[in-house]
C-alpha cells in the first residue's frame, strides 16, 4: 500500500516540507471557511447577522434558528419546518440506494462472470444513464409515472432514483468483479454451487470496498438530487433539497438567514454522516478499481 519506501517530492527537505504544509493549510482554510460561516451564523439571532459581520462568533448563542428550521419555518404555504421533507428524503433515498446497489451487484456479476451474447449491448445501454442529461427524459418519464399511477408520490421517486442509479452501480461492480479471479468461481461450480450461491457466498463477502463506494456515491447523488425532486414530487413527497431551495429562495417575508443556514446544515448532515462513517473504506474502494475505463 502506501509504502514507507515510497519516495516523493518530500525527501526530508525542510523547505519543501514547510511549503507542503502551507499549501495544505491554505486549502483547508479555503474549504472550511464557508462551512464555518454556515455554522456560526446558524447560531446567531437575526439582528446580529444584520449587524454585518458574518465572520464573528455569536454574542448570544441561540439554538432557536435550528428549532425554527426543523419544525417552524415557512416552506411553501405551510409553516412545517424541514422535518417532514427530511423524512420524505429518507423514505425515498434509503430504498432506492439499497435496490440500485443490489441490482448493480447482480448486473456486475452477470456481465462479467456469465458472459452471454449481447452482454456488451446490455452494458452499453446501462451506461447510457451515466452520461445522458437527465432533463432529456423528464417529460416522457413523467408520463410513464402517470401511467403506473405513482406520479407525485414517494414510490414514483424511489423508482426513478433506483433506475437512474443502476447505471453507476453496474459500472462500479462490473469493474470490480472483472478483476475477481474467475478460477474461484469455476472451483465453486465444480463443488456444485448454484448461480445465486456463487453470488452470495463468494462474490458478496468479497465486495466490501465496492459496496461502500457505491453506497456513498448513490446516497450523496440521490440525497442531493434536485431536478427529479423538483419535477416529480407532489405535495407530500417533496424531498429535502427542494424544500430547502423553497426556504432559502422564497421571495416573501423577512429573509431569516440564520434559519436558512441552519436548514442548509440540516440538509447536509445525512451525507456528512455517511461519509464520516464509511469514508475510510472509500479510498480503499476507489483503489480497488471502482472507476476504471
Amino acid at each position, binding site marked *: 500500500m502506501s509504502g514507507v519506501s515510497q519516495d516523493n517530492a518530500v525527501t526530508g527537505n525542510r523547505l519543501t516540507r514547510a511549503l507542503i504544509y502551507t499549501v495544505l493549510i491554505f486549502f483547508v482554510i479555503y474549504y472550511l471557511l464557508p462551512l464555518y460561516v454556515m455554522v456560526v451564523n446558524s447560531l446567531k439571532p437575526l439582528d446580529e447577522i444584520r449587524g454585518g459581520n458574518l465572520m464573528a462568533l455569536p454574542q448570544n448563542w441561540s439554538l432557536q434558528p435550528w428549532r425554527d428550521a426543523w419544525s417552524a419555518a415557512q416552506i411553501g404555504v405551510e409553516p412545517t419546518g424541514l422535518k417532514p421533507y427530511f423524512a420524505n428524503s429518507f423514505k425515498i433515498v434509503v430504498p432506492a440506494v439499497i435496490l440500485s446497489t443490489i441490482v448493480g451487484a447482480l448486473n456486475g456479476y452477470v456481465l462479467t462472470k456469465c458472459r452471454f451474447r449481447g452482454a456488451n449491448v446490455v452494458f452499453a445501454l446501462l451506461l447510457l444513464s451515466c452520461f445522458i*442529461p437527465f432533463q432529456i427524459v423528464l417529460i416522457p418519464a413523467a408520463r410513464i409515472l402517470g401511467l403506473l399511477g405513482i406520479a407525485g408520490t414517494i414510490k414514483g421517486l424511489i423508482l426513478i432514483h433506483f433506475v437512474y442509479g443502476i447505471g453507476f452501480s453496474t459500472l462500479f461492480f462490473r469493474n470490480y468483479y472483472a478483476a475477481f479471479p474467475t478460477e474461484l468461481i469455476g472451483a465453486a461450480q465444480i463443488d456444485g454451487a448454484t448461480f445465486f450461491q456463487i453470488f452470495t457466498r463468494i462474490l458478496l463477502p468479497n465486495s466490501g470496498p465496492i459496496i461502500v463506494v457505491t453506497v456513498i456515491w448513490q446516497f450523496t447523488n440521490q440525497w442531493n438530487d434536485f431536478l427529479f425532486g423538483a419535477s416529480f414530487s407532489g405535495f407530500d413527497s417533496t424531498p429535502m433539497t427542494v424544500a430547502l431551495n423553497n426556504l432559502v429562495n422564497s421571495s416573501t417575508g423577512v429573509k431569516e438567514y440564520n434559519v436558512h443556514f441552519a436548514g442548509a446544515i440540516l440538509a447536509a448532515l445525512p451525507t456528512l454522516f455517511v461519509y464520516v462513517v464509511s469514508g475510510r473504506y472509500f479510498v480503499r474502494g476507489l483503489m480497488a478499481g471502482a472507476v476504471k475505463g
Partner: protein
Amino acid sequence: MATPSKPQFRWHIAVFLAPAVLVYTAVMIYPLFNTLRLSLFSEVDQDRVWVGLQNFRTLFGDAVWSDQFWNALANNAWFFMIHMIVQNPIGVALAAILSSPHLRFSAFYRSAIFIPTILSFVIVGFAWKLILSPIWGIAPGMLDSIGLKFLYQPWLGKEEYALTTLSLVSVWQYVGIPMMLIYAALLSIPDEILEAGECDGITGMAAFFKIKLPLILPSIGIISILTFVANFNAFDLIYAAQGALAGPNFSTDILGTFMYRTFFGFQLQLGDPHMGSAIASAMFGVILVGVCIYLFGIQRRLRNYQF
C-alpha cells in the same frame, strides 16, 4: 474475461435480467428515444406534425433561438474549460501532496477538501452567494484586510464575471473528485516500480513526472471525461444560484438551463416540448461526440501506458 467452461442454457440469467431490463427500458430507454423522436415534430394548430430536421434548423440558424443556443453552448464550453484548467490540475497536485509519505493529519486534509463534493448544490450555491454578496458578504472585508479591496466586484451580478465566478464555485465544490481518484490511483502504483526508479536515481519531483504521471494518465483521462459529462449536464448550480433565467442577462446560461426554460416555459414564454426536445437532442449529441472521442481516440492511446 474467461467464459465458464460448460455452455448450458442459463435460464436464470434470462429470468434475472428480464424484470430489470423491463423497468429500465420503461423508465430510461423509452423516455430517451421518445425525446429524440419528439424533436422531429412540431405543433401546428394544436396538432403534432412531422417536421423532420426543421427544429434543428431553427435552433442553429433562426436568430430568435440560435443566439440563445450558441450563447449557452459557448458559456458551457467556457464552464468546461475552467474546470479543465483549474479543477483538474489542482486536484492532481493535491493528490500528489497528500500521497507523500509521513504526512501528518492527511486524512483530515483529505476530508476537509472532499466534504463540499458531497453537499447539495442548493447549499453550496446559497452559502457562496452570501459570502460573495456585496452587502452581507465576507469577501469584500477579507480583500480589504489584505489591502486588495479595489479588486472586489459584485462578481455574481456582473455580466462579465458571473459565469467565471460560478465556474470557480463549482470547481471549489468538485475538486475533491479528481483529488480522490488520483489519490487512489497514486496509492495503487506498485512499490517495486518506484523502487526500480530509485535504483536508477529517479526520485522526488522527477519520480512524479517520469514514473507516476504516465501511470496515472488513464485516471486523468477518466476524470476529464467525467468532468466533460458533468459540465455539459450541469443545471442545478446555475439554477440554484441565478434562477432559471441564468442572469445577469443570460450571461450564465448553459445548455441545461436553456433547455429547462424551453421545455417547461418561464414567466411569459410558454413551454415548448418540441424545441425543448431538439435542445435535449443537441445536448445528447454533444455529449455523445465527447464520449466517443474519449473512448475511441484518447482512451486507447492512454491504455498503451498501462502496465
